[in-house]
């Protein structure tokens, strides 16, 4: 439940980015949130609606792209969905893995008018 601090950091970063480049007409902010990031997208949306009011992003909308959780077999290197972790690797059946992707939390891009 650290979405509030995260939204404040995101807005701060995007404001600085836009000011540096003299961008005033941001329409949409696009975030990438990994399934394994422990971040709840709906909380981010709710916090964004509140925190943006005191910023230059007041008139913007938020778009969230979910990055699926993918794990990689520690033995053969096969990549497979995190949701299949209990069954083990589809190639060699080893059940040891590490997270390959899906832990990200990234400010992807802004859309301007």
């Amino acid at each position, binding site marked *: *439940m*650290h979405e*509030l*601090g*995260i939204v404040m*950091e*995101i807005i701060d*970063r*995007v404001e600085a*980015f836009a000011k540096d*480049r003299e*961008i005033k007409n941001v*329409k949409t902010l696009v975030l990438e949130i990994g399934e*394994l*990031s*422990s971040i709840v997208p709906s909380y981010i949306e709710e916090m964004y609606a509140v925190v943006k009011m005191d910023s230059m992003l007041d008139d913007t909308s938020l778009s969230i792209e979910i990055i699926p959780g993918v794990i990689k077999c*520690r033995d053969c290197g096969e990549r497979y969905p995190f949701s299949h972790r209990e069954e083990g690797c589809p190639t060699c059946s080893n*059940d*040891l*893995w*590490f*997270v390959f992707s899906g*832990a*990200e*939390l*990234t*400010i*992807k*891009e*802004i*859309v*301007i*008018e």
Partner: protein
Amino acid sequence: MQVIEIKKRVYERNDERAEVLRDDLKRSKTFMMNLMSSPGSGKTTLVVDMIKRLKSQCSIGVIEADLDSDVDALTVEKTGVKVIQLHSGGMCHLDAGMARVGLEALGSENLDLVILENIGNLICPAAYDLGQAVNVMILSVPEGDDKPLKYPSMFSKVDVLIVSKIDTMSVFDFDIERLEAHVRKLNPLIQIFPLSAKLGDRMEVWCDYLLNEVRVWQ
């Protein structure tokens, strides 16, 4: 309409601050241990017993972080070491900036070991690098041996797992081998120390390990 790519990790600025802090701590030969766990796992009991065992061998300071109150800080203060209480103001985790504030208030440049008791929570603190030399988490026996399945990001990030309150193992259906199997799947290199801080059982194994890590850091 035009799309402008930013592609910045949200934690990037915190990670940069944490790296600078870690370099500063390395220069002052101060070893910072970030201690994380859920509320009630025995963090303060562990810290108090560690101080009693280690304070003759190295200089120690403690940063207590809580949403509110100073009950833990007052308990630790009785051991005679310097303690700073940080209030996170409702936030569920500390970041590298707050850790620096705590270290400066403590005067950490003259200390060998700083124990930072993070906010009791197994989710949010896992995402924040504080500039620590070691990440340690406590899992207490009453919490159950299935916790690694429920909080994988914390268990996969820490260097050390302390299994506390092992004196209660017969009361709870806790299987240490099952726990180890769960944890090693997520984190093959983790160091695991089962102990009871209340009875002092196996505390010396953990304290010897930590003291050695402090010496290596220095």
